[in-house]
């Protein structure tokens, strides 16, 4: 049984956290691993949508979420947070993006700040599972189809009309019964 570390307080992330980190292939050890993740975090903040190996994307997602949540929590005047952002973001103009663009964007979010989708594999070249990692609220067209588009599909049209007909029938019944009551 370990004791929880209490020296610093963190915000809860709204994503699933793996119990253990996933190993990435990197000969330089744990430091190399962070360097690798740093590149993808940087690219995520730059391009807002990436296609990656699933493992790398899943790992990157946690770090990106943590960085954004720290930025939201402490703001740009907090020195340790700025140091952290300085470490994780290699292109320094993106630090401004983090504090000036992403923090206002995600300030009121009740959901996670990123989305992770499984992407199809291009058989037979790529054998590793692929995925798409993106920041929410990005300017690109949505990856998943919009539910509202399916309104006009034939079954939905039929169901809508069936609902209307059912309601009309019920209303008729109600008015009839009311009239009967009045007559009595």
């Amino acid at each position, binding site marked *: 049984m370990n004791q929880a570390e209490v020296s610093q307080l963190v915000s809860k992330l709204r994503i699933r956290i793996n119990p253990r980190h996933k190993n990435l292939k990197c000969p330089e050890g744990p430091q190399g691993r962070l360097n690798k993740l740093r590149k993808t975090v940087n690219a995520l903040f730059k391009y807002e949508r990436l296609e990656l190996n699933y493992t790398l994307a899943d790992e990157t997602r946690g770090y990106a979420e943590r960085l954004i949540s720290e930025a939201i929590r402490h703001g740009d005047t907090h020195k340790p947070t700025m140091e952290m952002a300085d470490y994780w973001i290699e292109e320094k103009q993106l630090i401004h993006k983090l504090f000036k663009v992403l923090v206002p964007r995600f300030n009121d979010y009740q959901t996670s700040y990123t989305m992770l989708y499984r992407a199809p594999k291009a058989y037979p070249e790529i054998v590793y599972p692929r995925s798409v990692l993106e920041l929410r609220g990005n300017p690109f067209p949505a990856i998943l*189809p919009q539910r509202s*588009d*399916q309104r*006009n*599909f*034939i*079954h939905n*049209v*039929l*169901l809508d*009309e*069936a609902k209307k*007909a*059912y309601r009309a029938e019920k209303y008729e019944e109600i008015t009839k019964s009311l009239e009967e009551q009045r007559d009595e």
Partner: protein
Amino acid sequence: MKRFSSCLYKKYSGSLCSIKYVSTSANIHPKTEIVAYQNNLFDNEQKRQREAVGRIEKITVKYIGVPENVTLSMNKGISTPFHCAQHISEMLVKRSGLALIDETHLWDMHRPLESDCELTFMHAQYLPDPYHFNRAYWRSCSLILGAVISKAFKTDIQPTLHSFPSPNVKSGSFVYDVELSNLPEWAPTENELRILSANMVKFAQKSYKFERLAVSEELALDIFQENKFKKEQVPNIAQQSIDKKVVLYRIDDHIEISRGPMIGNTDLLGRCSITAVHRLDTKNGHLYRFQGVSLPVNIMLNHFAYSLLEQRAKKLNAARWVDQAQNDTYVPQFSREETAV
């Protein structure tokens, strides 16, 4: 009088008494000769029209959409949107039901292209709105229903197809009006409806193409000489069309008048059930209105939700009676293409 045919399905043998009129055999064709004659005429006309194309000219067809934008060089008056789809992707061949030309004209999958155009394909999940596909699908369902009805009954009952109203998906059911001789009072049983539904699905699964042919009034009259209703309708239709032609559709050996457009192939029909047959009293005598509901093959629906649709489709579809107004087979703007906008 014994009405049962010799090859009943075993499935229904337990409830024989309820299956009185609907033929359970696939072999009984009461009007085989007439059908052969009709098809002969249709084939000849089709052949004549093909030969009339003459020297082959090329047209460029631009396809816009998934999997990629393509420019094709096709044969004028011969190549159809279906051929274009075959050049592009199998997925398009399988799912497309309708083509959209220059973003304005709806075009049948098997109707030859006539000039340079831009082409897109519509399917059941076409975005932003599959409205036109749904209409064409509903119309095609009526047509298939007509084909099934014409073969479903035993020899002593002569179904005479009347017509079907303009397709309206919102009405909840597709419809075909038929006169049944020798059957003044008929209320179909559950099993009879089930057999009709099964016949419909079986028919659809044979993957018949919807062949389109515009013919002259005389030929149309010749083809429908045995059908008193159609004979009446043909001159009307021809008059109202701009080029005095009547558009016919053929699936398997069943020929029908309709303005179109239709879907490309019967195998797009997925789940289907014939839910009710209502008796109508019109000035043409007693007609039976066959009603059904159906979903395209790639639309999945929970069985409970589907049962709701079936329940609704049992109620009488109040679409225009045949004598109330013009019906779909002879609307005034007959040969003008239905536009998408």
